[in-house]
């Protein structure tokens, strides 16, 4: 075996082998939001480090009759993948990552369940639905149709499905002359005056207003925005154990993004889930350890992280106008996995009058696609219940949150309008401009 192969193998096993550090201290079980509300999930310690010993002992586990079994503990499927166990572990065990891989190994070699396959295809769903937005939106809000979808496909009738925006962001961006990074484009501005925007599926198909706000804020700070061709980051596929297809999509993204990253452009995203996938999951989950994956990971920034960094360099335009409002803020699980603190809260402090309050709640429950599923919807609602109560008790009409599926979950559960932090900043700039004009 070559040294390179040994290094590769060690990298591949770094997640699984981290379970050797487990002290069996139970801290992960005390922070797990799912175990908190449902006995069917015994907790991360049992399906993670404890079951992992058996998985490591036999990569293709067999039972006593010599028949192949897919996992020593199939209850791992109740794990929502929120990642709190990994965050809380004092010993550095990558529990959530172990669970995700175990889920993939349960699914490996089997035809995926239609529902799980389908909700992984966010790009396809976006492309199919966008031209028929009014019809699709009507159907998704029609109770008999939703009941039928629940029965046939298994997506819960009350699950917070997004609303199609009609013409996708990319198409509008191209039409208004935005840079879409195709061959033959005019000369690009230098990397300190332009960023690559990874909009992801949500801003493209459902929330183009988030993309608009991001572009307004970036342009305001002197950055041109390039939106090169891109596909879904692959996280919904990873969450549903469909690693093979996720790798294919990752490759498509890396091919385009790596070129920009090598030229020194930073890749900025408005979805903390997509940016975390680019930063960490291509490596940790999909075992993509090559140069392309590395340069893209290092060049990727969550937009709030990017803006805080600009501020540190004294480059952020801080002429925010007054926003006199209470703003509950929920930090998504994926943001926590970035390990970058709470950049949205740092930015909110710069806005006069804005009273942002971190709700300090573990998880809203949705965990990407988890809470959409018929059998998991109730769990997701119970996981987020305290958060919803706190937001309702605050009396605020707006809430802020960095991740799209969390926004849809919180909006559906609380009836408040849930905004991406960059929308709040764009509104604060607009307020500042209005005040300046009035003078």
């Amino acid at each position, binding site marked *: 075996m070559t040294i390179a192969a040994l290094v590769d193998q060690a990298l591949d096993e770094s997640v699984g082998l981290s379970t050797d550090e487990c002290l069996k201290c139970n801290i992960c079980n005390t922070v797990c939001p799912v175990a908190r509300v449902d*006995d069917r999930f015994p907790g991360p310690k049992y399906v993670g480090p404890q079951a992992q010993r058996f998985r490591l002992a036999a990569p293709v586990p067999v039972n006593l009759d010599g028949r192949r079994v897919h996992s020593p503990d199939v209850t791992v499927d109740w794990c929502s993948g929120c990642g709190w166990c990994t*965050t*809380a572990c*004092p010993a550095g065990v990558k529990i959530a990552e172990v669970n995700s891989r175990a889920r993939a190994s349960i699914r490996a070699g089997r035809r995926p369940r239609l529902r799980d396959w389908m909700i992984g295809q966010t790009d396809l769903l976006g492309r199919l639905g966008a031209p028929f937005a009014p019809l699709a939106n009507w159907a998704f809000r029609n109770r008999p149709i939703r009941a039928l979808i629940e029965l046939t496909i298994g997506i819960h009738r009350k699950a917070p499905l997004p609303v199609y925006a009609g013409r996708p962001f990319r198409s509008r961006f191209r039409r208004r002359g935005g840079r879409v990074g195709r061959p033959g484009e005019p000369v690009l501005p230098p990397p300190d005056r332009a960023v690559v925007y990874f909009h992801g599926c949500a801003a493209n198909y459902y929330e183009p207003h988030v993309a608009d706000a991001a572009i307004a804020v970036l342009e305001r700070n002197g950055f041109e925005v390039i939106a090169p061709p891109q596909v879904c980051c692959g996280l919904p596929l990873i969450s549903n154990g469909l690693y093979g297809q996720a790798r294919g999509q990752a490759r498509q993204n890396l091919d385009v993004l790596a070129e920009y990253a090598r030229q020194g452009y930073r890749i900025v995203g408005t979805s903390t889930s997509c940016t975390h996938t680019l930063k*960490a999951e291509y490596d940790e989950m999909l075992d993509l350890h090559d140069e392309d994956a590395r340069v893209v990971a290092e060049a990727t920034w969550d937009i709030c992280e990017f803006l*805080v960094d600009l501020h540190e360099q004294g480059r952020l335009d801080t002429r925010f106008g007054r926003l006199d409002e209470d703003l509950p803020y929920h930090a998504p699980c994926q943001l926590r996995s970035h*390990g970058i603190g*709470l950049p949205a809260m*740092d930015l909110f402090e710069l806005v006069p009058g804005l009273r942002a309050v971190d709700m*300090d709640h573990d998880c809203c429950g949705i965990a990407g696609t988890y809470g959409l599923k018929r059998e998991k919807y109730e769990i997701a609602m119970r996981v987020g219940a305290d958060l919803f109560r706190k937001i309702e008790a605050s009396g605020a009409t707006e809430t802020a949150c960095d991740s799209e599926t969390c926004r849809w979950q919180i909006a559906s559960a609380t009836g408040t309008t849930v905004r991406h932090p960059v929308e709040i900043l764009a509104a604060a700039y607009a307020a500042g401009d209005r005040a300046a004009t009035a003078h």
Partner: protein
Amino acid sequence: MATADVAIIGAGLAGLATAVRLAEHGARVVVLAQGNGAIHWAGGPIDVAVAPGVDTPAAAVGRLASNPAHPYAVLADDVPHALGWFGSLVAEGDLPHAGSPGDPFRALPTGIGGTRPVAIVPNGQAAILRPWDPGERLVVVGPAGFKDFWPLAIAASLRRPSVWGGLDRPERVEGVSVELPGLAARRNLNALRIADLFDDPAWRRPALEAIARAVDATGSGPLRVGLPAVVGCRDHGAALRGALEVVDRPIVELPLVPPGIPGIRLYGLLRDALRARGGRLLLGEPVVRVETDGRRVLSVATSAAARSYVIRVGSLVLATGGIAGGGLVGDPDGRIVETVLGLPAEGPPIDRWMTGDPLDPGSMPIALAGVRTDGELRPVDPADPGAGPVFDNVRVVGGLLAGQRSLAERCGDGIALASAWRAAASIATGGGGAVGTAAAVPAPGGSR
């Protein structure tokens, strides 16, 4: 990159108490931790000190402080202030504690049928602080099916006088197992799940009535009820009041094997107190790099996805614990090194790390390993302690301080709180730290 007046590394009792206290002084603080600390295993009592032949924690502190190498030699005078402050803080958070360091030790029974000497305990254990009356019984009641608490076995063990360590004990101990509503159908229950149930007033009432009936069935006469320490978690105050009302007897919560619900309650209280004072707690962020100019720490970088997260700091507090907490490592050559800054640490030679019975906490000289400090808790080189602090703006608190044997001396909580108190005062009065440095950039702390 962000900025903080003070970054505290470690989210155990020492780190969180330092952070809360500093935030009260007006500092912008951020707590960075690899994960949750041992506070999640804590059983409730605040261990200040024990020593052979003395009968109060205060006297034990005095005894330990007479050894110039012990942290109490520096911190003994801070203990009453720190405990007084802690007492107000927990009372404010509806988790009042009873007892004081001048009170005599009492034996608190535990969920494995042992006891531990205590003098300061949360209200759920306060009933143990009163002497046992003649004829008074301890009735240990446990939910049937709860695998971490076996009342009959616990009672059998507690009937052995030797278990009580020479301290006052009840004349009789009985164990009763009781079916609580809905639990028969639930397996894999851990302590936290049962504590969550006790938080629910609708579940709590019939459960407590079942416990009351089981206690009454053991006969009349004076008694105290020993329950597993699961009487509520997030709403423990209300759960305990409900239990005292319905059961109508003195209740003692017995500490359990991990997870430790009393510790989780305290953690939640400290976390809320920190946030209310504008501080921030970031978990899952182990420190991977520290930038210094040789005399001062300038910034810390924590592990983040694809890069590191850099925070510029005025002062740094190390609350990373000792060998068990990960604040120290020993290498195969017998060197003991502090893990964040690579500070020189002191400790016994490698052939004396363990002696005698490895299960006897008194026999492990390696526990003495740690970082030596000056009176302001700034780290010094143990080989040349007179040369002054290694870093001017660093403080060391809690289990990382050299010279303590926290298992044998049961001094961990007292040292954590006293050193937190001292470090916060030292930084706030400008002893090398820089609270209130112009923060022209967003600092952790949330909106205030």
